[in-house]
């Protein structure tokens, strides 16, 4: 790839655009990306329409950075298309890699979301009960919308993914590291994460001693000491289970790590890993007391342990019973 310009595609599915902003935060280095690659598709910035990609030969795109999860028929189509056309497909950011916050939608389903959004939420004026349709007859013709799925899937639950770049969003420096690795051909084994394999705790400057907790605190309940480990102060910091790469930025501003970089290598379920880390710091042998500490301090296990990774987790989604989803909070217990 050194002598000839490669082809690069950047695409977004069910995502927020933050990955793209972070990519641009590499600032002047974006010019080096431009030097090395022809950008064949990047909907938020430039060049390339779907049918241009459709016309390309398979494997003719060198690298595709794909951010966003798969929530609609259109996104699934794009994932399959870009997989076929790309030599290297990178799940870029938390959404593509583990579902991220939109993956929490898997506690619900399409029917519930539509009902709330279009029929029940405050301030609606919808006496006829109109709900968006995949096909609508308007006076002038037919309009189409993509099908909205019950379940958000990660990119690798939809197509084969070659590499993962974690983070919500991946920090600009880590994106640059990955680009350099791609340019120099120094990539890790297929299907692995491009990044560090230590935890956020390893890069956190806070002072740690023995962790023994009698109660968990919610962030609004205490003003934590600025030097001491946040977990030791009872805040549920995800640092022990979360992959490094950000430089422990959140603890730096006195906020617990929320786990956006996902698990370290070899961990299949981020939530399970975090639960075991958390369980080990509870200062009690009494089952009743342990239960009380957990129930009082961690009122939302799903949102706490699977904030970014529900779609990728062993739980994946709440059970679908006919059309009615069981609230997922009832399924996850410590």
């Amino acid at each position, binding site marked *: 790839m050194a002598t000839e310009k490669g082809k690069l595609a950047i695409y977004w599915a069910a995502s927020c655009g933050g990955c*793209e*902003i*972070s990519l641009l935060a590499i600032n002047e280095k974006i010019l080096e990306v431009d030097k090395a690659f022809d950008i064949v598709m990047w909907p*938020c910035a430039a060049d390339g329409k779907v049918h241009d990609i459709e016309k390309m030969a398979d494997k003719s795109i060198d690298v595709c950075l794909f951010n966003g999860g798969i929530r609609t028929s259109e996104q699934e189509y794009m994932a399959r298309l870009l997989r076929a056309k790309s030599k290297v497909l990178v799940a870029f950011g938390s959404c593509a890699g583990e579902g991220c916050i939109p993956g929490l939608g898997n506690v*619900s389903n399409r029917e519930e979301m539509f009902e709330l959004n279009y029929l029940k939420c405050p*301030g*609606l004026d919808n006496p006829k009960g109109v709900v968006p349709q995949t096909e609508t007859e308007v006076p002038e013709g037919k*309009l189409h919308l993509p099908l909205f799925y019950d379940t958000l899937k990660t990119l690798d639950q939809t197509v084969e993914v070659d590499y993962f770049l974690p983070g919500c969003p991946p920090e600009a420096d880590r994106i640059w590291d990955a680009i350099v690795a791609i340019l120099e051909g120094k990539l890790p084994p297929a299907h692995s994460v491009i990044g560090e394999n230590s935890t956020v705790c390893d890069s956190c400057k806070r002072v740690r001693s023995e962790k023994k907790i009698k109660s968990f605190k919610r962030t609004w309940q205490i003003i934590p000491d600025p030097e001491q480990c946040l977990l030791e102060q009872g805040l549920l910091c995800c640092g022990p289970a979360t992959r490094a790469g950000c430089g422990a930025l959140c603890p730096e501003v006195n906020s617990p790590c929320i786990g956006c970089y996902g698990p370290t290598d070899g961990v299949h379920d981020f939530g399970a890993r975090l639960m075991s880390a958390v369980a080990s710091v509870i200062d009690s042998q009494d089952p009743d007391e342990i239960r009380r500490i957990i129930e009082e301090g961690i009122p939302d296990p799903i949102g706490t342990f699977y904030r970014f990774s529900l779609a990728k987790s062993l739980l994946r989604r709440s059970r679908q019973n006919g059309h009615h989803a069981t609230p997922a909070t009832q399924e996850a217990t410590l």
Partner: protein
Amino acid sequence: MSTKTMKRISIDPITRLEGHGKIDIFLDEAGDVANAYLQIPELRGFERFCVGRPAEEMPNLTARICGVCPEAHHMAAAKALDAVFHVDPPPTGKKLRELFYSIFYATDHTTHFYALGGPDFVVGPDAPPAERNILGVVKKVGMDIAGKVLKMRKDGHNLIQMIGGRRVHPNWALPGGVSRGITEEQRKEIEARGREAVEFAKFSIEIFNKIVLGNPDYVNLIKNDAYVHKTYNIGTVDANNKLNFYDGMVRVTDPDGKEFAKYHARDYREHIAEHVEPWSYLKFPYLKKVGWKGFVDGKDSGVYKATPLSRLNAADGMATPLAQKEYERMYDTLGGKPVHHTLATHWARLIELLFAAERWVELATDPEITGKEYRVLPTQTPTEGVGCVEAPRGILTHHYATDERGILTMVNLIVGTTNNNAPINMSVAKAAKGLIKKGKVTEGLLNMVEMAFRAYDPCFGCATHFLPGQMPLEVTLRNPQGEVIERLRQNLG
């Protein structure tokens, strides 16, 4: 008119608002525009899945609605939490939030002017598409401008990280204040960059004066009827009815510029309702007391705009001296208040950029800004609350209710661009009608349609465009059987 004979023009994708957008334009038998639709093909369901989560998660969860303006969601969520937990942040906490927000605003508006909206004017709406981008701006205005714009954005993002934890998706605001204050050393850095930002904003207005206002063709374009919609306007004002981005009362003015309503954010449901169409996943907010009359403007239609221009129309002026001067000059030039010319939104955005930079310096030099009391702990049982800020792309409302443990039982969000869903549809249709006659689609249409909705900066304003600079557009003209008759492209490969 039988639907069978209608021709259709599709613009797809037009990049994103919570995903992607798609425009369908229908032509009648004579080849004139019958109607146009802007469809939003995605929903992410935050209102549903946030229920059951602890309320304090919201500044972080809702930031993920938009990675372009996560700061706006972070702030609106924090304010909603203040209300839910019945806690009033100490002055330092509030000022830090507004400082952070002013830096974000200046950074975000810079991106829009130089990368998205500005090139149409600075380089010219008739310039070849390949030049109508940031690189074209650099060529026309001078090489050092790229460095200035890059520096402005980089400084802004660095300060956002310094104060809020991260460049994208901060983790900082809490009910009752913020998680960490700033040191004197940091304050000095923030002040120094703020003073540069004021100069940068003045410089940007100079460019606009010289290149846009100095050219009668451009002034005529701004005043062109194809870009006029006489709607209601909405914006947030302080105690003196001057514009504020972070806090104040919500003010609505009618198409004649008279105050129609002024309310506290918590009463938004008395004033704003949402209409649903089956052909878009995005709802259509409108003024409840006027009513939904369809995609039409005028005093009898509840359609309102929530843009930089709307905010200036809804306010009596700007709260900082330099911005106030520019505010007066804009209305003098365009014939008094209110201004309904959609393209004047670009000018209004620059005035807001100057205001944001001036406010940034004011707050950075406030004696309380380095105070140690930036947070108070809530003591009352959480219940329900509304938080509102002016997002760059329109007023942003977060409304939560919780149980007594602070677990969310209801979430309602009306986000920036959503406010403008109806007016953007109208603007696209009007521009299309003005341009497409007898089935003839010209390349000019592409940019004219683009300009109609680009003025709203509808959240595809991702900081992106330092390289190619311009949104790609493709218009496909099909016959009733769906076969492609003609395909026009710009800025593609």
